[in-house]
């Protein structure tokens, strides 16, 4: 009996998140449309995450290049460094790192914000004030995070490639034009599109998990901290699971 309890909790939570997601899909098309709040959330979620995602992307590009160089030198294919780094960043590192940073920043902040609103009765006050709090708080945040993460991923990829250019030129000399030509010559439709598409799913997972954890926060201020923490943990796990599924699908469709 004791052994089955964690499994039961896991299944209960999976069911609750599925219902919560179903409620999101059933409500996002229905009026009243919270357009102003949606754009406000796009600004908070997208624009304000830009410096952090950009900085981590730049460092990741630089470090990845410096780490790869010795191996390529030992095989005598040092000239392929820009191409390898470019593919790695665009296909995998860029989307996943940006999504994980996004989960840490946005997932936790949504979880904590909605959690504190829940325990201080602000969500109830919204309902009493003639507002559907689910539409106003959840639908706007989930849509904003779904649409903003792919844009952040594109920007993170670009900044990361600039970091890679710097990394290539620390120990060697490659012209700016040659670096970019090597990257674009080796990138194909099948590298860019699946990475871009899975970013939408990453953004949706971060938004829905953050909102679910915050909206269902319990046990006062302790529960708020727990909501923020578990939003980050769960959305990070989901990002890797979505990544795993995405790679299987692209493989099946021969996009690899």
């Amino acid at each position: 009996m004791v052994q089955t309890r964690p499994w039961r909790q896991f299944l209960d939570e999976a069911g609750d998140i599925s219902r919560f997601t179903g409620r999101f899909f059933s409500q996002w098309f229905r009026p009243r449309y919270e357009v102003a709040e949606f754009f406000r959330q796009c600004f908070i979620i997208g624009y304000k995450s830009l410096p952090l995602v950009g900085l981590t992307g730049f460092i990741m590009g630089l470090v990845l290049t410096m780490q790869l160089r010795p191996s390529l030198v030992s095989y005598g294919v040092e000239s392929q460094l820009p191409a390898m780094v470019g593919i790695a960043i665009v296909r995998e590192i860029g989307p996943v790192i940006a999504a994980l940073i996004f989960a840490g920043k946005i997932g936790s902040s949504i979880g904590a914000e909605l959690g504190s609103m829940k325990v201080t009765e602000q969500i109830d006050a919204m309902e009493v004030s003639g507002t559907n709090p689910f539409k106003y708080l959840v639908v706007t945040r989930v849509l904003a995070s779904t649409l903003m993460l792919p844009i952040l991923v594109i920007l993170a990829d670009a900044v990361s490639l600039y970091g890679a250019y710097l990394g290539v030129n620390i120990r060697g000399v490659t012209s700016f034009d040659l670096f970019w030509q090597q990257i674009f010559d080796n990138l194909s439709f099948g590298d860019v599109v699946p990475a871009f598409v899975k970013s939408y799913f990453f953004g949706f997972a971060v938004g829905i998990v953050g909102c679910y954890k915050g909206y269902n926060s319990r046990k006062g201020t302790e529960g708020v901290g727990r909501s923020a923490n578990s939003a980050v943990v769960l959305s990070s796990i989901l990002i890797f699971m979505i990544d795993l599924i995405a790679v299987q699908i692209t493989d099946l469709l021969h996009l690899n």
Partner: protein
Amino acid sequence: MLATASIVTEKKIITEKEKVIAISHLYKSFGDNKVLVDFNLSLYAGENVVVLGKSGSGKSVLIKCIIGLLEPDNGTIEVFGKNIPDLGHDALDEMRVKVGFLFQSNALYDSMTVRENLEFPLRRHTIKMAQKETDRLVKDALDDVGLAHTIDMMPAELSGGMRKRIALARTLILKPAIILYDEPTTGLDPITGKEIIDLMIEIQKKYNSASLIISHDMNCVRMASDRVIMLIDGKCYAGGTYDELKKLTDPKIKEFFE
């Protein structure tokens, strides 16, 4: 004895006033925990009724059932003749314009200024209103609670008593006919608590609104009530004026007044 006290006070009011809230045979439980068991209550126009009970006795559950935040298991809650559990979303919103709710924790929106907090119910409940009219209503509501100077401040910059007053101003901005107060003096020092009670009485006189006050603060009960309902074991255990109830010898009632 208990019933007599209750009926005498209520009969006097029935002859003069319209019944604005009528709760009958209300049941609400959470799992095995039966919170409200066959609870009955009436509130008349212009009357202040305090529901008195211990912490965890179901007072807040009762008030949340009235405003439609919780659904009762059984029974009827008629507000202006309409049964709340039967109302659809739009009808419930319409009803909530007439029923103000002061939350125990004030529930001010942290990310909004005082002005935005007060404008929020106006913008959400009314389809369109000129900015000039909105500004006037906000100013009037803040004047009512004596905090016009805080209009551009954030809730975090205000003291506990000020936050309670701003929450009251937000409740008043739609000029509700009924105001529900959930523990209005909880967490306040006795002096600030008394100021809030005085303000509630003043507002009730000014707008002639009916008030249902949930409390376990005996000062609040004594000062603000026309009639007191004692919520014990999920039921309406006794009812009457403060003085009538104070005279009773029932130990469950007596412990509140000692």
